[in-house]
């Protein structure tokens, strides 16, 4: 982003934007292209973690029966995930999972939100590593819960053998294996990653496109302005996607846990 800012200031935008725009130079060591320990992306992850920890600890240091405004806000976030996702999908058993679901929801929402926050302007979730971690946790979580609930054999029998005539089973079981144990974590990670990646790319295209047209021909200036107006409109769309993807990730995790807890297929 810093590099791009220099490029934009010099008036020679690289257009079209490429995948390399997602891999910014390292902060420490400064400017290195092959060091990933301390980049803008990892820094943002730490910032997100810090913001969430500080916000929740500060607002819930001294909880009161009659909540203050901040406490009410923190409780609303937790209450939303707890009641509208965990309890809605898992019943009273969902309360047990509400703390993790809320942590997951807050983390995804805030890291997504960095995509449209000035100066951050890219989401860590546009690097597949972070969605992949969360998807692996969800995958391990729902399998672990299922095995603990039903025992190893019964759990796999429940999730792999659908109630169908025996002669269909040779066809259905491989499909079930594929969809439940292979596609699920992959689709969970890729859905979030691709949304954030595409959103960032879209904003880059319209922002850099404006500069590219302006530098190519001064007569294209009105179209450049239109392009930047589109950027603003797309930022609103991006906000919708940010919230929706955070919600979807949490709901799908809850739904997988629900499937693992269910008695019958």
């Amino acid at each position: 982003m810093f590099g791009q800012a220099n490029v934009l200031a010099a008036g020679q935008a690289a257009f079209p934007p490429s995948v390399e725009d997602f891999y910014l130079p390292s902060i420490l060591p400064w400017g290195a292209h092959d060091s990933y320990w301390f980049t803008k992306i990892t820094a943002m992850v730490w910032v997100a973690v810090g913001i969430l920890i500080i916000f929740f600890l500060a607002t819930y240091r001294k909880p009161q029966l009659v909540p203050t405004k901040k406490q009410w806000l923190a409780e609303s976030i937790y209450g939303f995930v707890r009641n509208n996702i965990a309890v809605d999908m898992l019943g009273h058993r969902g309360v047990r999972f509400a703390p993790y679901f809320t942590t997951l929801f807050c983390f995804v929402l805030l890291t997504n939100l960095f995509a449209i926050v000035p100066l951050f302007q890219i989401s860590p979730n546009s690097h597949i590593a972070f969605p992949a971690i969360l998807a692996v946790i969800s995958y391990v979580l729902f399998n672990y819960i299922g095995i603990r609930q039903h025992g190893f054999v019964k759990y796999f029998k429940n999730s792999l053998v659908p109630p169908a005539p025996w002669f269909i089973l040779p066809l259905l079981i491989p499909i079930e294996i594929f969809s439940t144990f292979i596609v699920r974590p992959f689709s969970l990670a890729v859905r979030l990653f691709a949304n954030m990646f595409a959103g960032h790319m879209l904003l880059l295209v319209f922002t850099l496109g404006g500069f590219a047209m302006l530098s190519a021909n001064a007569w294209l200036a009105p179209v450049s302005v239109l392009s930047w107006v589109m950027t603003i409109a797309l930022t609103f769309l991006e906000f919708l996607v940010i919230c929706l993807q955070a919600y979807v990730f949490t709901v799908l995790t809850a739904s997988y846990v629900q499937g693992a807890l269910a008695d019958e297929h």
Partner: protein
Amino acid sequence: MFLLAAEGGESTHNPILPIWQEIVVGSVAFAVLCFVLMKFVFPRMEQTFQARVDAIEGGIKRAEAAQAEANQLLEQYRAQLAEARTDAAKIRDDARADAEGIRQDILGKAREESDRIIAAGKEQLAAERATIVRELRTEVGTIAVDLASKIVGESLADEARRKGTVDRFLSNLESTGAR
């Protein structure tokens, strides 16, 4: 896969291959976040929710208890009031009966008294009448004798004869009067 991403990092990145350094950083950061929030924040929120539920339910229970007590008191007061009403009615009836009795008593006494007074009057009258009759008798006798002695001119000094004459005369008088 990770090695591939790390090696290819210099020239071209493949966005679908995760960078292992980011996986490490993300895991640690997310683990820290989970640890803090799930240990120190959300359980306390559950506790607060529970405390709030208890407070509200306790309030409702207390209100219900107070309501029940008030109802019971009201019933008690009503019962007491009804009892007091019957008591009052009974007392009024008793008083009425007493008053009637007293009236009857007084009336009876008054009647007795009046009867007594009337009887006494009658007795007195009879006694006076007898006295008067006796006096009249003597007086009438004397007058008659005086008159007769004056008319006849003879002295009727003799006591026995005179008495007999007068008595005879009076008897005759009474019998003619009775006829």
